[in-house]
C-alpha cells in the first residue's frame, strides 16, 4: 500500500483559478458533467428533429430554416441535413455524453475521494484533459456553421465516404475534417484522463484502502481507464490517418479506381476495411467504456438502498475484468457483412456470445442483492432498478446480433438501433441519473427534490420503452436504419409505428425538462444536505457536503473495512462506514 500526497498546490485564490482553470478534481469533475449536460441537451434536440422528420417528413419545423438555411430551407429537413443531424447526434452522445459524464465526470469527482486521496495524481494533466475535451466539443459543434454543413457519414465515419473529401457530397468537406480533428483531440484528452485515473487508483490510496476494499464504482472507473487507454490509443492514429487521407493526399483507406462525382479519384492502394477494423477495435470497447461506469455506480448505489451487502462483490470485479478483456476480441461482429472473410465471422461470434456470461452474472448479482432486501425507493434507487430492467432488455437482443446467421437479416435495421440505445444509451443514462440523484448532495451540498425526481423516473422509464422497444419490431420487419424518409413500398406501412415512436420520444424528451429544472433549482437553492444523507459507507460520505478543497480537511482517512457492510445491527445503525474503526455488529 502506498500512501502519497498529491496536493502539492495550495487552495486557489481568485475566481478564474477556483472555478475555471481549476486544478481541483472536484471542480474538473463538475466541469465535465456540465459539458456533458450541454452536450446531452444538444444531442437530444438533434434526435427530436430527426424523429419529427421521420414521422412527418413534409411538415416544416418552425425556425429551423433560420438555424440552417441550406439544411432546412422552409423548415423542412433535407436528406443530407437529416444524415448530418444523425452523425452529430451519435458523435455527441457517444463521446461527449456517454464517455464524458459517467467516466470523466463522476470518476474525476469521486475516484480520488473514494480512495482517500486529496486529488488526482497529476492535477495539471487532469485540467488539460478537460480543456482539450472542451475544445474537441467546440470543434465538433463548429461543423454546424461551416459552408457545406456538418458531416453526414455517421458516428462511425466509414471510409471512403469520410476520406475522399467534398466530392463525396455535402458535409464531406470542412465538416468531416472538423469531425476528425475533434475526435483526435478527444482521444488525447481521454488518454491523459485514463493515465491519471490509473495512477491515482494504484498510487494514491489511503492507509487501509487495499484493492479488495475499493468501492465498486472506483473499480469500474479503474477498469474503464485501462480499456480506454488501449481503445483511444487506436482510434487516435486512425483519425490522424483519416485526416492525412483527406488533407495530404495519402491513401490509407482509399483504394484505386474510385469514381466519385464523375471524377476518377487520385488515390490507390488503401483499404476501406482497415478503417472499419481500427474504428471497431476502438468502437466495441467504447461500448463498455460507456456502460462499465454504470455497472460500478449501480453496484455501489444498489446496496445503499437495499440496506444489504452486494451479492458476490469479488465475482462482480472478476466479471468486470473478464468483460474488459473480452471487449477487445469482439469488434468483428460489427463487420460480419463487411466483406471480410466469412470464416472470421464465427471467430468473432464466439467471444461476442461468451461476453453475455459475465454480463448475465452481474445482472443476477444485482437481482440477487434485491432478494431479501429492505429497499428504500428513493429516486436513485428507482433509477438503479430501472437500469437493471433496461440493461436486460438491451442485452437480450445481443443474442440475436451476435450470431452472423441472424445478423445477415437484422444488420443495418432498426433492431440494431433499438439494441444499442437500450444497452449503452438508456442503461448508461440511467446510471448517470442514479449517480446524479445519489451524489448531488455531496457535489452541491444540497438535496435534489424527490417528488420531481420520481416523476422524472416514471416518465422516463415508461417513455424509453415506448421509444426503443418498437424499434426491435421495425427491425424484424426489415426497416433499414439511417434513412431520412421511408419511400420504399415495403417501408411505407411502418410509418405509423414511427409516428408512435416520435410522439413517445418527444414526451420522454420533455420529461427531461423536469430533471433539468430539478438540477438547476437544487444547485441554486435546494435544502442543505447532511454529510451522509443516504447512510452509505464509502469515504465520500465521511467528509462534509460538499467536501473541502483537500477532500478531508487535512486529515487523510484511514480505512478499516470494505464498502459492503450493510444490513448489520450495530449501535450506529445497519451499516458501518469504511473509515469507522468500530467493529461491525452481528448480522
Amino acid at each position, binding site marked *: 500500500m502506498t500512501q502519497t500526497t498529491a496536493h502539492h498546490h495550495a487552495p486557489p485564490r481568485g475566481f478564474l483559478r477556483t472555478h475555471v482553470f481549476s486544478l481541483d478534481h472536484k471542480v474538473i469533475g463538475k466541469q465535465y458533467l456540465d459539458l456533458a449536460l450541454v452536450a446531452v441537451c444538444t444531442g437530444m434536440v438533434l434526435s427530436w428533429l430527426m424523429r419529427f422528420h421521420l414521422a412527418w417528413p413534409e411538415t416544416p419545423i418552425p425556425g429551423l430554416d433560420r438555424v440552417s438555411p441550406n439544411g432546412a430551407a422552409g423548415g423542412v429537413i433535407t436528406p443530407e441535413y437529416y444524415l448530418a443531424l444523425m452523425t452529430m447526434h451519435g458523435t455527441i452522445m457517444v463521446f461527449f455524453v456517454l464517455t464524458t459524464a459517467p467516466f470523466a465526470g463522476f470518476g474525476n469527482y469521486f475516484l480520488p475521494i473514494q480512495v482517500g486521496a486529496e486529488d488526482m495524481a497529476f492535477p495539471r494533466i487532469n485540467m488539460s484533459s478537460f480543456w482539450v475535451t472542451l475544445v474537441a466539443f467546440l470543434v465538433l459543434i463548429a461543423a454546424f456553421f461551416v459552408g457545406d454543413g456538418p458531416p453526414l457519414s455517421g458516428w462511425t465515419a466509414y471510409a471512403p465516404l469520410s476520406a475522399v473529401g467534398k466530392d463525396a457530397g455535402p458535409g464531406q468537406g470542412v465538416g468531416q475534417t472538423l469531425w476528425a480533428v475533434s475526435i483526435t483531440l478527444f482521444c488525447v484528452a481521454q488518454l491523459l484522463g485514463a493515465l491519471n485515473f490509473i495512477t491515482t487508483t494504484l498510487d494514491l490510496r489511503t492507509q487501509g484502502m487495499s484493492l479488495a476494499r475499493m468501492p465498486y464504482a472506483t473499480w469500474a472507473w479503474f477498469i474503464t481507464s485501462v480499456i480506454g487507454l488501449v481503445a483511444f490509443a487506436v482510434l487516435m492514429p486512425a483519425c490522424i490517418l483519416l485526416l492525412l487521407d483527406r488533407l495530404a493526399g495519402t491513401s490509407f483507406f482509399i483504394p484505386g479506381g474510385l469514381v466519385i462525382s464523375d471524377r476518377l479519384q487520385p488515390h490507390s492502394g488503401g483499404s476501406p476495411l482497415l478503417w472499419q477494423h481500427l474504428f471497431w477495435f476502438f468502437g466495441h470497447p467504447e461500448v463498455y467504456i460507456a456502460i462499465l461506469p454504470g455497472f460500478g455506480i449501480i453496484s455501489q448505489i444498489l446496496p445503499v438502498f437495499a440496506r444489504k451487502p452486494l451479492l458476490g462483490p469479488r465475482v462482480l470485479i472478476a466479471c468486470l475484468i473478464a468483460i474488459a478483456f473480452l471487449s477487445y476480441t469482439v469488434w468483428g461482429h460489427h463487420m460480419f457483412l463487411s466483406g471480410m472473410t466469412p470464416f472470421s465471422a464465427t471467430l468473432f461470434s464466439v467471444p461476442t*456470445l461468451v461476453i453475455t456470461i459475465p454480463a448475465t452474472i452481474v445482472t443476477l448479482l444485482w437481482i440477487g442483492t434485491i432478494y431479501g432486501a429492505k429497499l428504500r*425507493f428513493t429516486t436513485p434507487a428507482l433509477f438503479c432498478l430501472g437500469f437493471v430492467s433496461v440493461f436486460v432488455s438491451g442485452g*437480450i437482443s445481443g*443474442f440475436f446480433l451476435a450470431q452472423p*446467421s441472424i445478423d445477415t*437479416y437484422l444488420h443495418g435495421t432498426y433492431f440494431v438501433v433499438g439494441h444499442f440505445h437500450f444497452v449503452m444509451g438508456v442503461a448508461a443514462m440511467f446510471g448517470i441519473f442514479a449517480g446524479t440523484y445519489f451524489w448531488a448532495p455531496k457535489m452541491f451540498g444540497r438535496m435534489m427534490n424527490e417528488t420531481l425526481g420520481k416523476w422524472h423516473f416514471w416518465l422516463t422509464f415508461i417513455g424509453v420503452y415506448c421509444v426503443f422497444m418498437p424499434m*426491435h419490431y421495425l427491425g424484424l420487419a426489415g426497416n*433499414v436504419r439511417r434513412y431520412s424518409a421511408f419511400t420504399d413500398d415495403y417501408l411505407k406501412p411502418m410509418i405509423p409505428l414511427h409516428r408512435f415512436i416520435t410522439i413517445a420520444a418527444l414526451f420522454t424528451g420533455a420529461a427531461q425538462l423536469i430533471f433539468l429544472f430539478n438540477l438547476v433549482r437544487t444547485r441554486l437553492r435546494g435544502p442543505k444536505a447532511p454529510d451522509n444523507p443516504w447512510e452509505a459507507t464509502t469515504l465520500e460520505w465521511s467528509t462534509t457536503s460538499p467536501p473541502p478543497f483537500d477532500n478531508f480537511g487535512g486529515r487523510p482517512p484511514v480505512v478499516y473495512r470494505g464498502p459492503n457492510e450493510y444490513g448489520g445491527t450495530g449501535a450506529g445503525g445497519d451499516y458501518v462506514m469504511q473509515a469507522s474503526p468500530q467493529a461491525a455488529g452481528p448480522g
Partner: protein
Amino acid sequence: MGKLFAVVVAIIALVSTAIFASHIWWLPVDISAHGHAIDRQLTETMATSGALFVLSQLALAVFAWRYGDRKDGRAIKLFPGGATPMVVFATILVGAEVLALTFVGSKVWAGIYQTPPDPNSLQIDVQAEQFAFYFRYPGADGRFGAVHPERIDEGSGNFFGLDPANDTTARDDIVVPSLAIPINRPVLLTLRAKDVNHAFYVPELRIQQDFVPGLVIPLHFTATQVGKHEIVCTQLCGLGHYNMRAYVEVMSQEQFDQWLKERAAEQ
C-alpha cells in the same frame, strides 16, 4: 412504490413479449432456399432469449414488490447459498445457450457464406454507386468484359467502364438497372462499388452484404418463389442513401430467357 415498479415492469415485459409473439411486425415471406434455416435460428433464439428476458424482468418485479423497507424491523435475508450457486447456474445456463447457438448458427452461416457457389450458377455482376444499382449479364459469349474505372461515364450509360471498341467480350454484355433471376436456379452475384460503401439487402431473400470499394465480393443464393421485391442499400452512402433501391424480379426460366433476349436487343 415497489409494487408500482413491479406492476410497471411486469406489464412492460409481458406486453413487449406479446407483441413479438403476435408477429404483427415480423419478417416478410421467405423466398430463398436458405432462408428457412435463418428463420428457424431466429425463432429459436427468440424463444430462449425471450424466456430469459421475461424471467429476469419478472424476478426483478417480484423482488421489488416483496422486499420494500416496511420499517418493521425484520432482518435482511441473504441470497440462498451466496453468489457461487448463482454463478455456476448462470454459467451453465447461458453457456449452454451460447454453445447451442454457436453450433447451430455457425452451420447456418457456413451454409450461406462459406460454401462455394454452385458451378452452374447464373453469374451476374453488380455495380453499386451513389445512389443506384446496375446489373450486368455476360451476354451470348458467357464472358464479362473487363472493367476500366477510368472509362466509367454516366452520360453515355457506361456504368461499368467497359471498352467494347477494344474488348470483344464486353460487346455483348447486358447492363440493366434492375435484377431479374430465374426461379430455383443458383445465382452468383459479384458485388463491386464504384465510389463508397453500399450494401445489398433483400429482406425476402434473407440476405445482406456490403459492397466495398476495391473488393469484388461474391454472394450466392437461390430464389424459390416468383415475385418482385425491393433491393435496398443498408450501408450509409450519402445524401441519397434512403432512396437507393432497385428491384429483383424472380421469374420462370422461360420468362427469364425471354426477358434477357429483349434486354440484349435493347443494348
